[in-house]
Every structure is written in C-alpha cells, then in structure tokens.
C-alpha cells in the first residue's frame, strides 16, 4: 500500500437536481389553483362595497380600540393581484423553493384578506377581529391536543385514525364524572382515563394482534360512538340532571396580561384546557426531541429492526407512545363536554378527530407544525361562522366549504414532499 490514493469521499456532494414530472405537475396545478383564486377575487371586486370595517375590540373589552375601515375595492384588487402574481410565479417556474413557499403563503393570506374584505365591505356591522382570534384559539384547542396525540402514535409507527373515538369517549367520561363529582380536576382526570382506554385498545390490537391499523381505527371510532351512545340513552339521558350537568370550564384571565389591548383577551383570557394545549405542544416537542424516550420513539417509527438490534423493546416503546398519546387525546375530548356545553350529547365531536388527523399529516408529524395547522383550521372555521352572522351575500353552504378551500390553497404551496415515519402503520413481527 505505498501508492497514494485519492482522498476517500466522506460525504456525498450535493446532488444535481432537475424538476421531476411529479414536481412539475404539482407546481403547475398549484399555479392554476392560485390563478383561479385570483380571478375569482377580480370578479368579486364588481360586487364589493365601499368600506370594510374591522372591529378590533368588542364591547366588553377594557381598552377600546378603534374600528378599522379598509377601502373595499382597492384592497380586494391588491389581494387579487397578489394571487395572480403568485400564480404566474408558480406557472413560470423560475422561483426557488423558498420563494415558492413564500408565494404560497402570501397567496393564501391574500385570498383570506381579499375574501374577508369583500364579505365585510358595505355591511351594517363591522367584522369582529378579536372574536375571530379568540374563537380561533378556542376551536383549535381540541384539534391541537388531538394532533399531538396523533403525532406521538404515528412517530412510534402506529397509525391513529381513532382520535375521534378517543375524543368521544373522553367527552363522555368527563361529562359523567364531572356531573357526579362537580369537580373540574376529577372530570379532566376522567377524560384522561377515557382517552387512555381507547388508546390501550388501539395499542392492543395494533401492536399485539397486528390488525390493519386504518381498519382498526375506523372500528374503534364506531365502537366509541356506539358505546357512548348506548350508555347515554340507557343511563345518562333518563337522569341527566345528575349525570349530565358537568361544571363548565371558565376563562381564567391571567392578571396583567389579559388587560393588554387586542391580544390580552385573545391569548390571556382562555380556559384551562387552552392553556394546557399550549403547554402540551412544548411538552410533546420536548419529549420527542430532547429525551432518550423520544429518540427511541422516533427510532421504532422509522426502523424498528434497528431499534430491536440495539436492545430496545419495539412493542414496549410503541405501547408507551400510544398511551402517552391517549392522555392528550383524552384532554382534547374533555373540551367538548367541559368547555363547550357542560354536557354530553351523542357524537358531539362531529369529525374534529379527523381534522386533528389532517392537521398532523399536513403538519408533517411535527408537534409545532401540526399545532400551526390546527390553528389554521380553527381560524378558517371561526371565520366562516363569523361571516354567517354578518349576512354576507354568500350561500351558507359555501361558507362551510370555505375552510377546506383555504386549506388546500395555503397548504399546496407549503407542503411539497411530505414524508411519514418510514414504519408508520407497519406492525413489528418480533416480540
């Protein structure tokens, strides 16, 4: 070995990239979509009123902020132009990927603002901005908790389609226990137990018996709906005074901070579950990325054999992740009975579990991104319901679809390549 050798390459040089067919199709379809949205906004200018008013405070706020008036037509036109520009940018294909992401976000926001302006312009009442924001946080609370539940399960390699079922059973147990004990902490505890029971069923059948996880999730949802519905009809309904009048979570203003104009009431006058949800995001992030347990969770979700060969119990870690997820799922479920109504009604979670699932997927299985997606869902849903009260010229059916349309636009530019944990949904064969 006396000859000199060229240095061995220790790292691959960056690969040359060309646009693949898939990417091209994706880019072009996003471009067309954004362009169409721009055109719609242009058309809407014809029916835009003079001034769109946005109320920054509501009547009960300590600090009253002025009501903002935006000139209707110019704002809608600017927003339309932004969308058209972004659309053309996508179609031409000269944008770097970072600029493209930015263009997607700008187009999404421009669409929302333009649409809002059109809807609010010339109405009798101003659009209530602070209601919009605090409503966003409220609606997003269960979504955030549900998405965190999903993040934990799926990072460990267990697909969780049964967030909805966990919500429902937790809503039920917390309503009943809350009614009996009249104690919020006990009701929350009951919610956690309700979530854990469903999570344990998921873990048992997915990990131990290797049932197809999507089918299993659907079955668990049906089970939760059927079981809570049955017990509700047979036992709870007949004596709803005793068993179905749980204490309501009340907003807890944080002294000092809650008096801040605009943001105060939005951020610092929420109920305990909302605070808990925000704290949970940090907790889950920390667990996943800063603890040994989290490293193991991610390892069994990506490459269970590798984890096995270094002596990690794949099943054990999966069990623990699904159960910890169940805690958050349960807390999310408590929202429906304790924060919204103080009582349980059949199938009261109305698909929120699935929206949480969507948030987690679009949030790329990352707790923080998933939370942002959940907030976004909350925002658009709240906006749709606010617009309904404004008497906009729009059919209400369209308003119901709005959240999803907006999501598609905002996410299309953002998403790019979504990569699930490699072993997500794949049972592990060895003990």
């Amino acid at each position, binding site marked *: *070995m*006396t*000859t*000199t*050798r*060229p240095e*061995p*390459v*220790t*790292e*691959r*040089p960056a*690969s*040359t*990239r*060309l*646009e*693949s*067919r*898939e*990417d091209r199709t994706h880019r072009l379809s996003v471009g067309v979509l954004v362009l169409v949205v721009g055109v719609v906004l242009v058309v809407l200018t014809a029916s835009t009123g003079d001034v769109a008013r946005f109320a920054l405070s509501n009547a009960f706020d300590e600090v009253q902020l002025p009501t903002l008036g935006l000139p209707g037509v110019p704002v809608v036109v600017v927003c339309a132009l932004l969308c058209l520009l972004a659309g053309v940018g996508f179609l031409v294909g000269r944008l770097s990927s970072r600029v493209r992401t930015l263009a997607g976000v700008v187009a999404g926001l421009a669409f929302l603002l333009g649409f809002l302006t059109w809807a609010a312009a010339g109405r009798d009442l101003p659009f209530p901005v602070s209601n919009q924001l605090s409503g966003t946080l409220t609606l997003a609370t269960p979504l955030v908790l549900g998405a965190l539940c999903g993040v934990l399960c799926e990072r460990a390699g267990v697909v969780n389609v049964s967030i909805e079922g966990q919500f429902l059973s937790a809503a039920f147990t917390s309503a009943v226990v809350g009614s009996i004990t009249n104690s919020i902490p006990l009701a929350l505890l009951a919610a956690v137990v309700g979530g854990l029971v469903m999570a344990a069923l998921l873990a048992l059948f997915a990990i131990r018996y290797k049932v197809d996880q999507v089918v299993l999730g659907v079955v668990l949802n049906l089970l939760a709906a059927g079981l809570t519905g049955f017990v509700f009809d047979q036992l709870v309904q007949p004596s709803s005074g005793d068993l179905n009048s749980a204490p309501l979570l009340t907003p807890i203003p944080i002294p000092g901070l809650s008096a801040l104009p605009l943001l105060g009431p939005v951020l610092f006058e929420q109920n305990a579950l909302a605070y808990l949800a925000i704290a949970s995001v940090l907790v889950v992030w920390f667990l996943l990325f*800063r*603890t*040994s*347990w*989290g*490293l*193991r969770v*991610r*390892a069994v979700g*990506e*490459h269970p*054999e*590798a*984890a*096995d*060969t*270094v*002596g*990690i*119990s794949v099943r054990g870690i999966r069990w623990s992740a699904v159960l910890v997820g169940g805690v958050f799922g349960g807390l999310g479920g408590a929202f429906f009975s304790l924060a919204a109504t103080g009582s349980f009604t059949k199938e009261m979670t109305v698909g929120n579990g699935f929206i949480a699932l969507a948030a987690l997927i679009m949030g790329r299985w990352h707790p923080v991104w998933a939370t942002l997606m959940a907030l976004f869902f909350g925002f658009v849903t709240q906006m749709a319901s606010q617009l309904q009260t404004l008497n906009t010229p729009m059919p209400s059916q369209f308003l119901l679809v709005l959240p999803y349309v907006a999501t598609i636009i905002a996410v299309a530019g953002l998403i790019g*390549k979504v990569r699930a944990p*490699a072993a997500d949904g794949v049972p592990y064969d*060895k003990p």
Partner: protein
Amino acid sequence: MTQSSASPPAGDVAGTDAGAGVLRLDRITKVFGSLVANDAVSLDLRPGEIHCLLGENGAGKSTLMNQLYGLLQPDGGEILLDGAPVRFANPRQAIDAGIGMVHQHFMLVDVFSVAENIVLGREPGRGGILDLRAARRLVREMSERYRLEVDPDARVEDLPIGVQQRVEILKALSNDARFLVFDEPTAVLTPQETDELIEVMRALRDEGRAIVFITHKLREVRAIADRITVIRRGRVVGEAAPSASESELAEMMVGRAVSLRVDKTPAQVAGARLEVEHLTVTSPDGVVVVDDVDLEVAGGEILCVAGVQGNGQSELAEALLGVVPASRGRIRLDGTDLSRATPRRRLRAGMGFVPEDRKHDGFVGSFTVAENMVLNHVDAFADRGLLRLGDIRSHAETLTEQFDVRTQSVETPVASLSGGNQQKVVLARELSRPLSLLIASQPTRGVDVGAIEFLHQRIVQERDKGTAVLIVSTELDEVSALADRIAVMYRGRVVGVVDADTSREVLGLMMAGVPHEEAVRSASVTTVAEEEQKLEAEVAEHVAELEGSGPAGPGLEGGGSGV
C-alpha cells in the same frame, strides 16, 4: 493443508480447551417450518482470531449469527461463554455479554444523525434527558481511537454506503464488544473500501477481539482468515486453511467442482446496435439519477455497467426499457429511434429485459412456470384472445429442458422454486424470442454458484448469436467474468468505459468517481493478471505469518497478542 472433513466436526468440541474468553456455539439447530436452516452447527470464537464463515446464499450464515445475537432462539444446542452455557433472549442480553454485530442490512435509522444512531439504546444523559453533546463527544473519541472517520452530526441517509458501514462498526464497538460479527460486510463496498475494512478488522483482531467474518466471496477470505469454516445447506461441511485455493473453497461451498471462469471466446463485434445519447433520468423527488449518459453496445459484445449500488445503473436499465421515463436523451436500437416508445414497443423491437428484482418485476409468483414463460409475449400464443394452452405448455417444456430449470412440472407455481431456478425461468423467457438487445440487471443476485455458472454461459451464448448485451452488476466478479467492455458509473455519470482486463483496483477507484487515467496512475496494478499475482503473494505472506506464529487450528493460540 486443506483439512476438509466429510462429517460436521460436532464431536471434537469436548477435546478442545475451553479457554477464557472463548465463545462457543455448540451444535446449534434452527428449524423454520420444514426447512432446517442450521443443523447442529458448532463454531468457536477466540480472542485475537478472525474466523471466516463461508457459505452460499441461503446456507444459514445469518440465521446462525442471529441466534448468537439474541434475535432468534435456537431450537437445539447451546451457546457457551467461557465454558458456561448462556441464553440470549434478546439482543440486549447479547450486547451485555460483549457481542456486537454489523448486520448484512445496515441497522441504521436513515433520518437520524450519526451520533444519534450510535447512542441509540444506551443514550447518555441524566433523568431521561438526552445529552446529545455527550453523544457527539463519544462518537468523536471512538472515531479517533479506532481511526474510523465519521462526522457525528451528518445525517445517515446523506452518507455513502462505506461510511454508513463505519457507523455500524462504531455502533457495535460502542458497547465494547469482545466478539464482533460482520455479516457479509463487503457485499456493498468498492474494492478500496473492502481493503479499508479488512485493515479495520485486522486492527480489531490485534486488540484481542474475536471476529467472525461472513462472506460468500472467496478472494477476500484467503488474505485475512485465521480459520475458515464452510457451511452448506445449514451444515458445517468442514474447515479449511487460508492456504486453500479458491477452487478448493468453492468446491467445499457448493458441494461439487465448479468452474469460476466463464468459457468465452473473444467477442466478434458487429456494428453498434444500441446507441444512447445524453440520456438523463430524474427520480420522483427531482434528483438526477442518470446524468447525460452516452453509450454504445455493438452486436456480439457484452458491455457491463459496474458501480456501487445506487449510482444510477438500475435506473439506466429501466430507462432503456422505458419503464421509467427519461427526461432527456435519445435511445436507438438498430437505427430505430425508441426514445419515446412505450415498453411494449421496445420489447417488440427486440429488447429482452431481466429485471433486478425478479420477485417484484420478473415474474408472477403464483402463476405457473408455463404461464410465466409467455408472460411478455402472450399474444404469440393466443388466437383472438383465447390462449392456446397446449402450445404454451409445450413451449414451457422445451424451455425448462433447455435451461435446466429444476421444477416438478411446468404447472408448478414459480414462487416455490429456488432463486436460481426462478432466474432461469426469467432468462429462458427473455431468450426464447429473437433479440437485438438483452438488458440484464443483477442477473445472478441471490443465485447459487451452480446456477450462476449456467446463467453466465447462456448469456455468453446469446452474445455469440450477435445480440448486443448490456449487463448491470455490482459484483466485480461477475463483471470480470462476463464483460468485453466495462462502463463504470458513479453518481449517475459514466466515469469511463474500459477494457475487460482492467484490474479491480482501477475499477474500484473509478467506482468512487476517479477518472480512468488518474485511477491508472495511482493504482499499484492495472491489469487482472498482475492483480492475481499480487493477491497470491499476499496470501502466501499471510499463510507464512500464520505458520510462523504456530499452525492455526483448533486447540492452539491464534496469532493475537492474547487477552
């Protein structure tokens, strides 16, 4: 010197010393359903010794080691550590007993950093909180100590295979393993990387560790082994000394005399039949996998495309057939432009294709041999959509005989045949029509040595009919056996097209991206013949060394400094 015995040396265990630090597998038996994967296999691992475990694909080598590592439980026999029986219910227990394993398929989490992979399972930190800084420090220390260079923060999926293997080795060493198993570690390496690995194994041995080196490649065994155990169909068929010749080892491994060289006359080259210009292919996520490739294959010659797995060879073959779209470039066969043609048209134009993953793309496992043999030209065996079953059957019977397919009948499902026979079915189908071009990707992967010989012979026969043949192979043995010319690919580009008698050393450098001229300048040998001489000299030196420090064999101290 070859001490091959007909019966497994199961009985001689009691006779040898149960010295300290010896790990002994004693008559290990493992059964999968009706298949006896290990039949009373005994093996000693001694400190300071490299023990080669030699056997064909499917001989049961990995199965044996997985039992040692606690991944599988033996159905019979026992494992003795320092003379005392031990049981490993899971890998953790094996690791704690000082066993480390570099797995055949790397056990690395792609999306983790090097440091995260190495500490996984025994993470540093207090109160469950991960201390990544300590992890990095550990990796740096180990990396320095064993002179295995890695960047603790690199993501594993961004590393070349050779470096990933270093990570695997460090991972095994991080548990301070006294017994190290390398399961076919060279299968994915270039010759230079193989040399480096051999140096690493030697250094570890000299530290007094016991090493098991599993392989089915003969040439590397002889230069490094202190002892060689050969297993065939789950049984130990004997021990051999490093001085045994390659053909002696091959005979023990396969059970009969095999010729390691393909008989072939020099190519009678006609005009160019396949012409490829500027061919460029992108993967779905936008990476250029085949980068502006120009190639020509003449009738009557075999062009081998060599390269480390994943450098665009497979995609090149698939793009030639048209199953992956090319984003640029021209493909002409016998003058006809097929750049935009469908795979069906290309097959009609005389392309034959043997896919890399035969189970996935080569046949339908649940179909019979006969059905699979007409799979891609079924029109020729049908009248107005109705199959002529009699013709299909007799066609299949002729082919099974010609290609020596060992099957009970042509009505047997292909899935139940052995790998070699499955591949014969695929090749028979492709060669049963007149071809202008035969493309074969990894034609002998996972195929037993006996069948390899046969398949190679048939490919050469096809060449001699005047067909242009393009072989993609990551096995340099196969490349040098078949090629008339060799194209080396690296990161999607053709680094160079060279003569068939280019040495592995030069090819290896080219496989790492070094241009041909530079590779020739820095290589110590440039032709195959020179290289063989050098290898024989190395083996002789190694054997002399072993003899100098006392004859290697059961019951005697191997060359190491001792523990």
